[in-house]
């Protein structure tokens, strides 16, 4: 098992390096010189010289690459042009939103998708099956942003003044703000990188308000997260449902399942104990791949629901031609994605011993 894990990790390294290289080259591929495209057409000679020196653009490309990788290794992603602030600081403020949104989306996708898939497979070729599959097919075809807008319209306007009313935008209601857990507990968060880290953790609104028992804020934050998370979860959920169904159907037709039935095991036992274990293996891989869809979809979802996350920041950065932000955020999200998939691969090794020997 250990050698399998080590092999997996080693296989990830070239991909990570490739991601660094690609994001580095992306910004260099901007047509025209970076100074004028970032500072505007009217930037003066001196401003450009200063800009090039600040960003190391006056050095040779390999040296620039070295500086770039070295910076990232030290948690330095450069500086935003529009805000003149370190990107790391913006990440500390913005990334938690995206993490909470993606995790909520993943949670909904898995906790609804898998049971629906099992249901459809068990009721194969019945009305339930057909209805579930029709919904799943419509679900994969839904543009995230459209669904988001429809949900906002329905839950914020149509259901207004009912108990089901949900807020259509923002992360917390106006006037609410949570106190970081280290302040509640009277901790000293320290300085520099350590303080940044604790600030990063405490910016996970839902997590922070739950551990510090700020229930009003927790409830408000969850309410604000429901619609975006549902919109974001729809496509992955539909894919997981379809995958679970087809995988379970395939396993249910195997001989060992027939044997289990023949020896008199109840249907619940046959599906739950015998079939599901094997059927869910391919689903694990799909879940890992859906993380990419979640992170990509976050850009659209955060834009629709005005959530101050990384995705919305990318959108704003594009409009403002703030390339360092696009670059920095792309690197962080892609690396997170690769590492999550590494975890999925490793967990797959635990679940299916055959994989380890390949």
């Amino acid at each position, binding site marked *: 098992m250990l050698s399998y894990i080590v092999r997996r990790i080693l296989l990830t390294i*070239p*991909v*990570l390096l*490739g*991601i660094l*290289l*690609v*994001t580095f080259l*992306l*910004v260099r*591929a*901007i*047509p025209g010189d970076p100074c004028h495209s970032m500072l505007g057409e009217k930037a003066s000679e001196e401003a450009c010289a200063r800009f090039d020196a600040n960003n190391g653009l006056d050095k040779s490309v390999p040296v620039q690459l070295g500086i770039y990788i070295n910076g990232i290794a030290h948690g330095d992603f450069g500086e935003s042009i529009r805000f003149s602030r370190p990107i790391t600081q913006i990440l500390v403020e913005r990334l938690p939103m995206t993490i909470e949104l993606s995790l909520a989306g993943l949670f909904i996708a898995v906790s609804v998708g898998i049971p629906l898939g099992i249901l459809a497979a068990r009721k194969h070729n019945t009305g339930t099956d057909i209805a579930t599959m029709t919904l799943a*097919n*419509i679900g*994969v*075809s*839904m*543009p*995230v*942003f*459209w*669904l988001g*807008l*429809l949900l*906002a*319209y329905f839950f*914020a*306007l149509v259901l207004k003044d009912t108990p089901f009313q949900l807020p259509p935008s923002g992360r917390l209601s106006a006037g609410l703000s949570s106190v970081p857990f280290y302040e509640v507990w009277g901790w000293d968060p320290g300085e520099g990188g350590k303080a940044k880290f604790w600030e990063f953790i405490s910016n996970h609104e839902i997590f922070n308000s739950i551990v510090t028992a700020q229930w009003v804020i927790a409830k408000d934050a969850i309410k604000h997260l429901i619609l975006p998370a549902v919109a974001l979860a729809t496509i992955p959920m539909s894919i997981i449902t379809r995958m679970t169904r087809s995988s379970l*159907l395939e396993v249910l*037709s195997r001989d060992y399942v027939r044997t289990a039935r023949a020896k008199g095991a109840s249907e619940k036992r046959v599906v739950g104990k015998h079939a599901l274990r094997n059927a869910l293996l391919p689903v694990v891989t799909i879940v890992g791949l859906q*993380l*990419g*869809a979640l*992170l*990509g*979809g976050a*850009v*659209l979802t955060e*834009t*629709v629901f005005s959530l101050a996350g990384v995705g919305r920041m*990318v*959108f704003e*950065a*594009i*409009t403002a031609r703030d*390339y360092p932000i*696009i*670059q920095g955020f*792309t690197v962080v*999200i*892609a690396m997170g*994605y*690769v590492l999550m998939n590494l975890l999925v691969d490793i967990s797959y090794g635990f679940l299916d011993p055959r994989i380890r020997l390949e």
Partner: protein
Amino acid sequence: MDSEKNNKPLSPKAALIEQLASNEDLYLENPASVWRIAMRRFFRRKIGVAGTVIIGFLLLVAIFAPYIAPYEPNQVLIGIEDIRKRTPPCIHILDCPADQPQHIMGVDGNVRDVFSRIIYGSRVSLSLGLSTVTLAIVVGSALGAIAGYRGGFVDNLIMRIMDVILGFPAFLLAIAIVAVLGPGLKNALLAIAIVAIPSYARVTRASVLSIKEIDFVAASKALGASSTRLLLTRIMPNALTPLVVLGTLGIAGAILEAAGLSFLGLGAQPPLAEWGSMLASERNQIFSSPYLVIFPGFAIMLTVLGFNLMGDGLRDALDPSLNE
């Protein structure tokens, strides 16, 4: 059959063989090709047929757009009709007063007929979906075929590059590429094609790897066929099946991604009648004029659904291992 042969006395065994040979029904009804069998299987299942009907309908809409749409897609109706911007849908047979001009999907913020724009939008989405996937398949399968056929260093190099592209969440990489190349439909097309290439390369490589070991390829090689000839006329035709399925599903994904990019302002630029950008420009009106958001989104969903269903149908039809 030769009459001379018939006159000859036959041994019982030879007679039986003759009889069998003349009775074609004993063999296959038709020496049907794989594709024809697949076709038959495809049309027997509702899912594929449903997809084909939807796509067929949309193709007709796209082709005959000028005859269906009551207005030009970019025609501003100020001064032509007595109508204000964002007028809700008005359908005469559904109790809309006859003195009001008919706009079955309403009028948008620039006083243009939404229905006409949706009709013309089908042209943009369909051609965009088809061209991105064609581009991705051509490049992806060429890379995959070379990797699978050559093996060794070339294989490693190509596939590691593909791994890096797959390392990014696809939509995010597409955003980054368009952000750098500059917004626009052409760049969006290119970006979506680039992020789609690795899946086609992987699938083609896997097919090529298994097909190149089959005897008929070795036979061709023994006859002196060149590598190019082997790849193009022997191996690739047999590696097409998964590409067709993946490509059909890929069109669905490409249309969805393109709409997403347009929604972010990175794809189609106004005033082009593209569903994603139509939706984006009116998204703040969701609470006051929801129809301006509902119709373009529905058009996107219907198109994507059509290709998804068709792809699923094709997969069921072309992959016998999946048949229950």
